[in-house]
């Protein structure tokens, strides 16, 4: 059983972080990022050509992360691979001991750096979860043929509580859970009020008992970063008060961290939230500070106190 | 002017009411329930879909008890999602089309120069007629016309003329073919020779049959034909089998009447319905035909058979006249009485038929210019691809669908503003827009 799964099932409030692979073969950059956060997080998400920009493959990066002594969460998107490639990559990863998988639909290629590319979207994230679950639990491929050997995998999915149609979001999550999602990582939370309303719905449907929900956190580095996310990143909701605080802050970075920490504190209070997923894109170095400030350090389990 | 807005209880957007007020319409919103609110004089505007068909509108009018022509459909359903400005303009255009504003055209009207070019030189009857109308005429053996606004300029002399009258020439066409044996009877004479022939022989109980083909035997022939009435001595029976009787000329009506009174029998029928054969004794021609009125064939033995030769009018060579790329086109109608004076080019006329009428037409043109137009939109259902471009782009919502299967484009003449926009947009070129110049006949661009 994967460390992440263990911790979650022990009821530990877990912390995961995100590491974006480099636009090249520079494995050192990954190792470096890992070094910065080792001991402060329980697992690391490796993005799969996020925002449709070509990067070192998620699969390879996961292996590098493992060597760096961290627990990888491999992201798989349906954008670039059909059910054949996805299943084989899944098997490959499992064979090499990667156990956590985050199944995503993926950002549309026309928003990335190869807009001329032909998208695949053979299946969507829900179907992907279903296929992986079947491979693991029933030992059969999407087409029903037998899979040799036994597969161990901890399946997760993403969800954005803030996108439209709002009322449908919870049910979509329910679908993912039904399909086989064991943990959920949400879009970055700023609007706590909206988020807790969403969580209420989830509790009403008793979903929080079936799935571990990790709330997303993005530490804001600057006002520009905020503006960019607010306007450019689809499905991102940032309430006005955040913007105000960033604007009036003497030191925006500090303020960003403060906001993140406060948010985490608030999230811990919400029933059903089992952890946080810190997406400090291109600012991994800040993760330790946030984890410390949130009193989530040291991490239990592997590599506890070390790292500093 | 009252307008009753029909078929919409929903609160109307501002642009509807505002424009109405701007155009000083008093209006009220009516529904099927409270149609009594309608004043008999009021105009009913249906805020419906452009897909409302004429029949539906008529039916509605019936329900409202108003004259269908007073019911206009504004394609509200289609329009209302558009940006407000667009709605406004469309709605404006629509309202204007309800009551065409007093055409300020009159104020601008440009009238052609009061001078006429005759080509080739006209005979004195024509010149006199124009002189009487105080319209100076000019003519040149050789020239080039170039359009300058409403006027033409006769180059190289550079004389402005307001109009140009073409004088067609006559061209003999092969006459009606008569069966050999009929010719053998020796009883066939040409119209010109008929008087002498008749003058010679004794005319007791003699029967003369004339075959007059269409199109367009020229007036001289008709003068001769009508003159037969006054043939001495009486008793001869004259039968004129004509495809068309030509009376559109001063005095012809009169002559025609007199001839009939004198017992000349005119029978209007296609010559194809006439059959000829020699009599047994080969001294007469048996003419059999079925008149249009009654179905029973009439048979008579003609002592003299007169095939009037077929003549047709051809325009003088007009290729040297520079009028953009349009050359003068004339489809001659079957009925010579309906010869158009006008051509497809405004300001260019053809002189045939009654000289007086021609002069009147030309002088009216010179007074009014070619500005006043009444257009007509024609849809060629065979070409139409039913793309509904016209229906969607008509500024006055005059275009709808008709037919049981709603597979035909129908233009509501009452609403059509004759702008030709639909014709310009039609991708299948199924819509032709004709400008019918008052008194001028047709011209197309």
């Amino acid at each position, binding site marked *: 059983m994967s460390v992440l799964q263990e911790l979650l099932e022990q009821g530990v409030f877990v912390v995961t972080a995100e590491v974006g692979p480099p636009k090249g073969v520079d494995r050192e950059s990954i190792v470096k990022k890992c070094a910065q956060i080792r001991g402060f997080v329980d697992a690391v998400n490796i993005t799969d050509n996020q925002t449709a920009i070509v990067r070192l493959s998620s699969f390879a990066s996961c292996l590098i992360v493992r060597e760096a002594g961290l627990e990888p969460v491999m992201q798989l998107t349906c954008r670039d691979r059909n059910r054949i490639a996805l299943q084989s990559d899944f098997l490959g990863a499992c064979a090499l001991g990667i156990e956590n998988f985050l199944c995503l639909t993926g950002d549309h290629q026309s928003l990335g750096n190869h807009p001329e590319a032909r998208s695949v979207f053979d299946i969507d994230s829900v179907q992907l979860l279903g296929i992986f679950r079947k491979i693991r639990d029933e030992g059969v491929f999407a087409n029903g043929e037998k899979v040799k050997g036994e597969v161990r995998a901890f399946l997760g999915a993403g969800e954005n509580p803030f996108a439209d149609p709002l009322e449908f979001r919870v049910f979509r999550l329910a679908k993912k859970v039904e399909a086989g999602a064991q943990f959920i990582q949400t879009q970055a939370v700023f609007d706590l009020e909206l988020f807790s309303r969403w969580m209420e719905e989830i509790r009403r449907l008793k979903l929080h008992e079936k799935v571990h929900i990790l709330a997303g956190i993005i530490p804001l580095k600057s006002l520009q970063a905020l503006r960019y996310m607010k306007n450019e990143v689809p499905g991102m909701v940032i309430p006005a008060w955040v913007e105000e605080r960033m604007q009036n802050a003497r030191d925006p970075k500090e303020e960003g961290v403060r906001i993140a920490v406060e948010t985490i504190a608030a999230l811990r209070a919400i029933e059903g939230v089992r952890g946080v997923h810190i997406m400090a894109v291109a600012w991994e170095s800040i993760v330790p500070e946030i984890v410390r400030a949130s009193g989530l350090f040291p991490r239990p389990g592997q590599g506890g106190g070390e790292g500093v | 002017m009252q307008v009753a807005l029909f078929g919409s209880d929903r609160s109307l957007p501002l642009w509807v009411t505002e424009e109405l007020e701007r155009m000083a319409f008093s209006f009220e919103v009516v529904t099927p329930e409270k149609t009594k609110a309608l004043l008999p004089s009021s105009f009913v505007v249906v805020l419906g879909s452009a897909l409302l068909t004429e029949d539906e509108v008529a039916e509605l009018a019936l329900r409202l008890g108003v004259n269908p022509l007073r019911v206009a459909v504004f394609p509200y359903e289609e329009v209302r999602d558009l940006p407000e400005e667009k709605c406004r303009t469309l709605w404006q255009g629509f309202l204007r089309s309800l009551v065409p504003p007093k055409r300020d055209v009159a104020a601008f009207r440009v009238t052609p120069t009061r001078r006429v070019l005759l080509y080739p030189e006209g005979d004195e009857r024509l010149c006199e007629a124009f002189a009487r109308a105080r319209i100076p005429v000019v003519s040149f053996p050789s020239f080039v016309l170039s359009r300058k606004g409403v006027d033409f300029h006769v180059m190289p002399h550079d004389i402005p003329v307001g109009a140009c009258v073409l004088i067609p020439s006559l061209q003999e066409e092969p006459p009606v073919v008569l069966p050999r044996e009929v010719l053998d009877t020796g009883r066939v004479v040409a119209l010109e020779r008929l008087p002498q022939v008749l003058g010679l022989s004794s005319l007791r109980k003699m029967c003369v049959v004339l075959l007059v083909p269409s199109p367009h035997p020229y007036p001289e022939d008709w003068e001769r034909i009508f003159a037969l009435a006054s043939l001495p001595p009486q008793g001869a029976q004259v039968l004129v089998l004509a495809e068309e009787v030509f009376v559109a000329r001063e005095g012809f009506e009169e002559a025609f009447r007199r001839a009939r009174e004198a017992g000349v029998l005119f029978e209007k029928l296609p010559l194809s319905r006439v059959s000829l054969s020699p009599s047994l004794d080969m001294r007469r021609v048996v003419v059999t035909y079925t008149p249009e009125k009654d179905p029973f064939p009439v048979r008579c033995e003609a002592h003299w058979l007169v095939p009037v030769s077929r003549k047709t009018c051809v325009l003088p060579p007009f290729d040297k006249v520079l009028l953009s790329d349009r050359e003068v086109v004339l489809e001659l109608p079957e009925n010579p009485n309906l010869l158009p004076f006008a051509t497809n080019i405004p300001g260019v006329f053809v002189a045939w038929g009654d000289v007086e009428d021609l002069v009147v037409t030309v002088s009216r043109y010179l007074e009014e210019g070619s500005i006043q137009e009444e257009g007509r939109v024609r849809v060629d259902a065979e070409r139409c691809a039913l793309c509904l471009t016209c229906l969607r*782009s008509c*500024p006055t919502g005059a275009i709808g669908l008709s037919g049981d299967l709603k597979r035909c484009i129908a233009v509501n003449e009452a609403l059509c503003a004759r702008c030709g926009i639909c014709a*310009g947009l039609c991708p299948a070129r199924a819509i032709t827009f004709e400008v019918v110049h008052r008194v001028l006949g047709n011209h197309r661009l």
Partner: protein
Amino acid sequence: MSLGIIGCERSGFPALCALGKEEPEIWDRIVEVFPVPCLGGVDEETILRILLRCDTLLLVGCPPASCRNAWGSTLAEKRVARVSQLLEEAEIPKRVFCVFANPNRLGELKARVVV
């Protein structure tokens, strides 16, 4: 440089004639004159066909606001824009313009026609 003119019979054509009375010499440049009921009805082909015989073609019509047929002049404007763009693409030196005038406001037309 030869001129062709399509004038709407409501404003454009009268305007042209009015101008012609003021400045007769314009006629020496104008090789084509087409009166039409509304500029909106003039399709691209007609425009191009007339362009065959002149260097510049003017569509003279009512100012869009006062066009009797709501969007006739506007439509003409769009067409002209499109055609000019096509001509440019094809690198054809000929030009088409939309001019709004009536006998009471000849300014724009004058500017285009009188050299």
